[in-house]
């Protein structure tokens, strides 16, 4: 089984995001691997362990994104490649998907492309489905569990975690899947993995290496503004008993027009 997993470098989820002069700023908070992508790496590794095969990690981003790739290597990925090209600095999800598809084609023989369900910075969750569309592969998103996979027969059956519950979907390989939290806690990097990652040479591919022209981005960010501050006030609702408190609360909710 040949698996490609895609990871993104994002600001730590604990970072305080601010907008200063139209630029997003997260202070001195560290950049980390996108938390959802850790689940993707875990899923990729589990599938490779179960069905045999190797995991190749990719990241689209600047030089600093190598840190996210090293995390994937330390977790157990066999190789890591950075995709970095000045023409991709403002790539939207559609442009990124074309780049991911080109990387998958260049790697060759990929059975499964694995993504986290979304990135915590841009939060669109579009890349997996768009990549599948570019490749012409099935898109199995929000995967909570891979119920069956037959590398020989090239079939896959997954459980999708959706609002209504679990949905079982079957598809043909090669396919693109995106992973949700229910798949299971990502493993910590092992100490041996950390050493391997710290010594690893991470290859960099440019658009020239991928053999594609700079894809056009349809989405641009003409202006970035901080959302208006929400003023919150607290009020303790008291009463002689639970019924009275509940009644007062209900009146309040209706009075404020919340319901």
């Amino acid at each position: 089984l040949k698996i490609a997993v895609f990871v993104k470098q994002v600001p730590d989820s604990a970072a305080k995001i601010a907008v200063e002069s139209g630029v997003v700023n997260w202070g001195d908070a560290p950049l980390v691997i996108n938390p959802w992508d850790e689940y993707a790496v875990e899923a990729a590794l589990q599938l490779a362990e179960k069905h045999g095969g190797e995991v190749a990690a990719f990241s689209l981003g600047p030089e600093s994104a190598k840190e996210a790739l090293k995390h994937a290597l330390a977790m157990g990925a066999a190789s890591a490649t950075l995709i970095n090209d000045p023409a991709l600095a403002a790539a939207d999800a559609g442009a990124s998907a074309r780049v991911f598809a080109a990387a998958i084609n260049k790697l060759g023989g990929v059975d499964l492309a694995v993504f986290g369900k979304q990135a915590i910075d841009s939060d669109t969750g579009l890349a997996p489905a768009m990549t599948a569309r570019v490749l012409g592969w099935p898109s199995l998103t929000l995967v909570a569990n891979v119920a069956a996979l037959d590398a020989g027969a090239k079939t896959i059956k997954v459980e999708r975690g959706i609002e209504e519950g679990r949905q079982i979907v079957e598809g043909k390989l090669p396919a693109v899947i995106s992973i949700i939290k229910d798949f299971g806690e990502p493993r910590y990097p092992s100490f041996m993995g950390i050493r391997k990652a710290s010594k690893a040479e991470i290859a960099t591919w440019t658009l020239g290496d991928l053999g594609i022209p700079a894809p056009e981005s349809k989405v641009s960010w003409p202006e970035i503004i901080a959302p208006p501050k929400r003023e919150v006030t607290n009020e303790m609702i008291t009463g002689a008993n639970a019924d009275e408190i509940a009644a007062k609360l209900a009146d309040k909710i209706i009075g404020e027009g919340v319901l």
Partner: protein
Amino acid sequence: MDFQLNEEHRMVQKMVRDFIDKEVKPTVREWDRKQEMAPFILPRMAELGILGINIPVRYGGQGFDYISLGLVCEELEAGDSPLRVVMSVHMGLNSMALLQWGTEEQKQKFLTPQAKGEKYACFGLTEPGAGSDVAGMKGTAKRVGDEYVLNGEKMWISLASKAHHALVVLRTNPDAADPHDGLSAFIVELDRKGVTTGDIHGKLGMRAGSTGFIAMQDVHIPVENRLGEEGEGFKIAMSCLDNGRYTVAAGATGLIRASLDASVKYSHERKAFNREIGQFQLVQQKIAYMVQQYEAARLLYLRAGWMKNEGERNTRETSLAKWYATDASFDAAAEAIQVHGAYGYSDEYDVERYLRNSKGGVIYEGTSEIHQLMQAGYALGYRKDADLRCELPAYDAEYWHAEK
């Protein structure tokens, strides 16, 4: 001079921090209240490789350097002090002594399973009647043919009831002109006949840790279990402390950080007189001191770790780091409680536990008073470190990483 941690160091730090945040912190209060060690701690630390972090790969370890050991200890104690204590005894006081003084056979037989985390290890020096006065110990080891017969009791021993192996120091020559020269070190498997162990409860802190006693009554061990030469016990014990104290210093640094982080967080959350309390200068002063203490403690232990990596004798520097960091961790925790006010006095918040846990470090592995005597001794020229027959090996990445 390079103050930058390397990539391996940073990844080790993050890995241990993630483990602490996800698995340890949610359970800390519960086990502290129960006064028991959480049963998952030792097996999980073993499984993750933490118990062998800085031992060469050929002896079952992970092959990282001594600075990594310090960073691990800082992260562990920033989460919960008893986890750092595990590293102090299993690694600092025992496994590193085997690396330093052990024969190849002893390394294969005892160090390798310890570094793999298959066996846990502890260290027995203190007795009910002998702490700082090491040479005043009463426990004996008598040579009988190819064996030693051990008798005595070791007290305040971390992991006494959990460990498989103990490194104990006992008197082999009661007639030595200098009592220090009459001591020898032994590796004792704690399932041997005549050994009994147990835990002590009712401690001020380290309640979720295992602290106990090892009693030995006519325990027979083969001569091959003696570490070093006969009469070398005191020197071995002091070299063990050079390593144990390093882990205590690094851990106490983590405890200062925990007090600082908790105080900063609370200072932003808590409001008094319509302002967050962080805006009051007297609260700021407490936080400023914690920052100063954290940075100074960190530099002191990292210097000691760097010296270990270089193979330089570091008794003075490690003692200084341990003395400073443990005293500072007690002060920082006390001030963190003050920042938290009445809430800090309850175990609803972590800072009261930080204070209780910090006090142990001020006492064990050389009380602050012992370290003051040592530092004055060095400064006045009364104290000099003689060369040891076996020095702690300098960190050599190629040797540490090699399988054979």
